[in-house]
């Protein structure tokens, strides 16, 4: 781990200032970083992937870890709320079940006890080339994505190129499915960013980042609006081993079904298959106005994966993800499937 200065602000204004006034470093990964639980930042630091000149600890800022609201008003989750807090929160479990499931699916109890929702959304990719200290890949300012032609079992099948990372966050797909947005404070004041506009594809520009946050910007709150879909939301995650692991593929789904059994609206967001949480608008549109049955689910699953372009070693992700889409929809739509 590269040596760094350590700051403990007590309010958000101070935190932003402390991020601005430190040496910014020559490389984007040397810029000062905020730290929440440190469960990702310390791992990237240990491999010299991030080498911040200063770490600004957010945990001393009071009130940033609250979870407020309910089904009617929507949720306001402080950026410092831990995954354990979210998973154990009664209101989240009852009214936003997919979010509780996603939080519980992350890593291990130890990591969930410290890892926060803000840090979860901002965590860095897990591609093993990226995580190898001695490899300077495209994401680290190098000239090549080694996964494009190398060991790409875990990489993207959708939205890839020129880098083929997948976004590792388990909370991002479900929060996107639930229309969440983040409140951000930075050097030029506050802004509100819909998650839909938060994550960035490598092809859209800045290869060194996975989202639109600028240096010095800190997420303070995650807002989940009330919605008729929230109560019927789920997050299904498929891992290579059942204990600690990232998603090979995951599906966040939410539906509103009328008393007549017809879908009024649907959301499907895929995780672990693209550099961003990947929304499937065609499948969503297809489901709207339909009564769910096994055939409809199968068709929606196909549509959700339309355009997938597997790399040499990850074609398995296509049928795997289709199966997860079907299962997730069956669960939220109360459809019996084989």
């Amino acid at each position, binding site marked *: *781990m*590269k*040596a*760094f*200065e*350590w*700051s*403990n*602000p*007590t309010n958000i204004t*101070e935190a932003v*200032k*402390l991020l601005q*006034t*430190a*040496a910014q470093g020559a490389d984007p990964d040397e810029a000062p970083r905020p730290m929440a639980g*440190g*469960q990702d930042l*310390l*791992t990237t*630091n*240990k491999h*010299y992937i991030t080498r911040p*000149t*200063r*770490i600004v*600890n957010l*945990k*001393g800022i009071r009130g940033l870890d609250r979870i407020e609201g309910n089904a009617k008003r929507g949720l306001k989750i402080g950026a410092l709320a831990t995954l*354990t807090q979210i998973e154990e929160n009664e209101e989240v479990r009852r009214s936003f079940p997919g979010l509780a499931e996603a939080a519980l699916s992350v*890593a*291990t*109890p*130890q*990591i969930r*006890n*410290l890892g926060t929702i803000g840090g979860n959304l901002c965590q860095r990719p897990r591609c093993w080339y990226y995580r190898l200290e001695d490899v300077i890949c495209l994401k680290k300012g190098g000239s090549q994505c080694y996964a494009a032609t190398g060991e790409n079992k875990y990489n993207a099948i959708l939205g890839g190129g020129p880098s083929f990372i997948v976004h590792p966050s388990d909370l991002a797909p479900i929060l996107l499915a639930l229309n969440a947005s983040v409140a951000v404070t930075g050097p030029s004041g506050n802004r509100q960013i819909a998650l839909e506009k938060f994550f960035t594809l490598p092809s859209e520009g800045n290869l060194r980042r996975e989202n639109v946050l600028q240096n010095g910007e800190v997420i303070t709150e995650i807002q989940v609006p009330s919605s008729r879909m929230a109560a019927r939301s789920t997050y299904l995650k498929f891992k290579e081993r059942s*204990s*600690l692991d990232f998603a090979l593929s995951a599906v966040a789904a939410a539906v509103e079904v009328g008393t007549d059994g017809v879908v009024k609206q649907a959301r499907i967001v895929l995780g672990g298959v693209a550099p961003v949480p990947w929304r499937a608008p065609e499948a969503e549109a297809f489901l709207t106005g339909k009564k769910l049955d096994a055939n409809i689910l199968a068709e929606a699953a196909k549509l959700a994966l339309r355009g997938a372009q597997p790399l040499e070693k990850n074609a398995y992700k296509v049928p795997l993800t289709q199966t997860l889409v079907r299962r997730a929809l069956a669960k939220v739509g109360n459809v019996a499937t084989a």
Partner: protein
Amino acid sequence: MADEHDDKVARDIAPPSPGRRQFLKGVGIAGAGAAVADQLLLRPHEQAVAAEPPQTLSAATTEVTLQINNQKRKAMVEPRTTLLNAMRNHVEPPVTGPKLVCDQGTCGACTVLLDGKPVYSCLVLAVDAMNKPVTTVEGLGTPDKMNAVQAAFVEKDALMCGFCTPGFVTTISAYLKKNPNPSLDEVREACKGNFCRCGTYPKVFEAALAAAKGTGRNGARAELMNHREAAESEA
């Protein structure tokens, strides 16, 4: 054990100046005792900001006070020193219950309780643990006065090489406080962040359930006493 994972120290940092004290102020570290920042010694990029942040600690070595197993323990650490490293290598006598294995938050051997909750001490900075109680396996009980989980591990012979044991015992001890009467599945779920290369899982879970039922403690105590008595009468 030497700190194998800090072998990069030389590459990154100016020689530490152990005599130098840092300015420790602000909520996170109020307990550590404020001292005066010796700003003339700051490195170049620090000089630019020297006037401003009273709650900032420079990158060099500083003295911190940790609260390990209800004792105040002083350590000379850098901000980048992990709690695990600090306990094992920078307090005297060292606290070696928590083990260093992966140093990446993937094995659980370094599990400690921070504010009563299991966390990986390899993924906590010592400077970030300063005002919080840390409990290691040593703080849960002693060979003469084991807690129920420790006793059940003995009784059920729940280890092979034993390297993962402090982590499991710590995780399970905290979990049983939260859920005193768990099912096997719940125990397995609670232990998902602890790995055993020797594959002792069945015994580990058995010990956890025995400890929960209270059979572990009594059974193990009785058995231990029997062993001792037998050994003594043989002598």
